[in-house]
């Protein structure tokens, strides 16, 4: 497995798109964090403000900004092999397909966690421009939001890697990773507020990306709505919904990768 990890690490760091995506994600996230800190500079610094700044908006957005960029890195990790026909030399070097895919997930996931941790540092630095003291990052629920944020990025990167392998390309998974949370899940969520369609409400908590947002929810906000109204699960049970989705996508990708022609 060590050779697979070395291979994937060299693969990842020797294309420009990796660095562009990381740079763009960090820049955008830091800009949002700075904007939020600026907008709340006259309010007393509390854990809610710190949570929003650190996660660049928290669960108020339908998707986590940085995680989207990390998911695209995951899509490229597998999809580029088919777009640029590098699957042949890749399998000529590492014919054990399960090891190869697992190695990609480990490296991309590790990068996702590291980049997210770096983003947290940058966002705190952005906040400190207006804050008069270093915030307490351990107070509840901030102590759960931060590891939740790292886990959320990890799961998005795994989903991206799995989708790239499932679709064996780049365009289709890119569309899927944006359309599902931004259109499909938002549609179900919003429609569930319509009284005649309230039977949709029980399904909302099982929408994987919406559920995943609970990992960075400070006080029950859910993709712009109220978590209690749509009976969202609590933070960690919601995490299992997204984790189960990521695991299912990865298992399907692995099964098809092993049985399809390369």
């Amino acid at each position: 497995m060590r050779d697979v990890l070395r291979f994937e690490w060299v693969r990842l760091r020797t294309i420009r798109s990796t660095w562009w995506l990381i740079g763009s994600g960090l820049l955008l996230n830091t800009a949002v964090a700075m904007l939020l800190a600026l907008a709340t500079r006259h309010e007393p610094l509390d854990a809610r403000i710190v949570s929003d700044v650190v996660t660049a908006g928290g669960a108020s957005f339908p998707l986590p900004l940085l995680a989207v960029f990390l998911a695209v890195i995951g899509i490229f990790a597998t999809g580029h092999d088919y777009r640029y026909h590098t699957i042949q030399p890749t399998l000529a070097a590492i014919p054990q397909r399960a090891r190869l895919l697992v190695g990609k997930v480990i490296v991309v996931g590790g990068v996702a966690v590291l980049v997210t941790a770096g983003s947290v540092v940058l966002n705190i630095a952005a906040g400190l421009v207006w804050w008069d003291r270093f915030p307490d990052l351990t107070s509840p629920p901030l102590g759960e939001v931060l590891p939740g944020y790292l886990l959320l990025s990890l799961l998005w990167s795994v989903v991206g890697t799995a989708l790239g392998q499932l679709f064996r390309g780049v365009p289709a998974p890119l569309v899927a990773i944006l359309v599902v949370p931004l259109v499909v899940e938002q549609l179900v969520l919003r429609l569930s507020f319509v009284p005649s369609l309230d039977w949709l409400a029980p399904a909302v908590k099982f929408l994987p990306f919406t559920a995943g947002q609970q990992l960075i929810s400070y006080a029950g906000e859910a993709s712009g709505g109220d978590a209690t109204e749509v009976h969202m699960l609590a933070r960690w049970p919601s995490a299992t919904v997204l984790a189960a989705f990521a695991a299912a996508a990865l298992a399907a990708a692995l099964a098809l990768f092993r049985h399809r022609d390369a």
Partner: protein
Amino acid sequence: MITATALDKRYGHRTAVDHLTFEVRPGMVTGFLGPNGAGKSTTMRLMLELDHGGGQTLFDGRLFGTIRHPMREIGAVLEARAFHPTRSARSHLRMLAAGSGIPYARADEVLEFVGLAGVAGKQPRSFSLGMAQRLGLAQALLGDPGTLILDEPANGLDPHGIHWLRDTLRSLAAEGRTVFVSSHLLSEMELMVDRLVVIGRGWLIYYGDVAGFVREFTRPTVVVRSPQAAKLASLLGTEVLDDGSLRIPGADAAEVGEAAFREGVVLHELTTETASLEAAFMTATGGAEEFVGMTA
């Protein structure tokens, strides 16, 4: 030594490769010939376990997927442009080296060998087909493997490049390596290969040495010149051509010479013309072409 046994691949009702069995021996270059759509690339993909199908291929007795670092033992290139356009040639090779436990320095060595040292740090998006082929060969040689499998490596190379490739593959084979190479350049294959595997519509047409293939699928022609050409033509039951020569397909030069001697006919030339590999290929695969164009 490569041992391919009963290789088989079907797409629905269409058979792409039909129970192919052959061996590729070390110390020589083995050519892989067939018309477009004959199943050459699919066969190579089956051998490298890129495609799933029937049969098995053993490399010195082992399946490809069971070899821990296959690039150190089998260098394969099936597509000329199998690289990311913005990853430099050196980084492309270092990536593969990293996955195979090969020192990074080897990447520069093989780039130097194939003549791409000057563009090692360049993005290969602007590489010509010939440069891409050279990068592919560098990739195949990265692990200093004992076996090479190359699909159309001469495509896009200029005459100097083709000459260089021929010398390179022959010298690699002379070192005891197993070289299996497909190509459409039949004149080049004639100069390069020692043995042939010829397929058409997925089934084996011929497996053996080049001379045997030409013998099996063509007839030699005896060419005779004589100041008594008309008498000789009458004797042999043929006609005198415009250039004054006689051409007798399928004849034996010794028998023609003896017949002339018995009748007192003076000969100025008595030669046997052997058909080319191309002629033999056209005869052997004439009925196995997948795609046939119209003649103007």
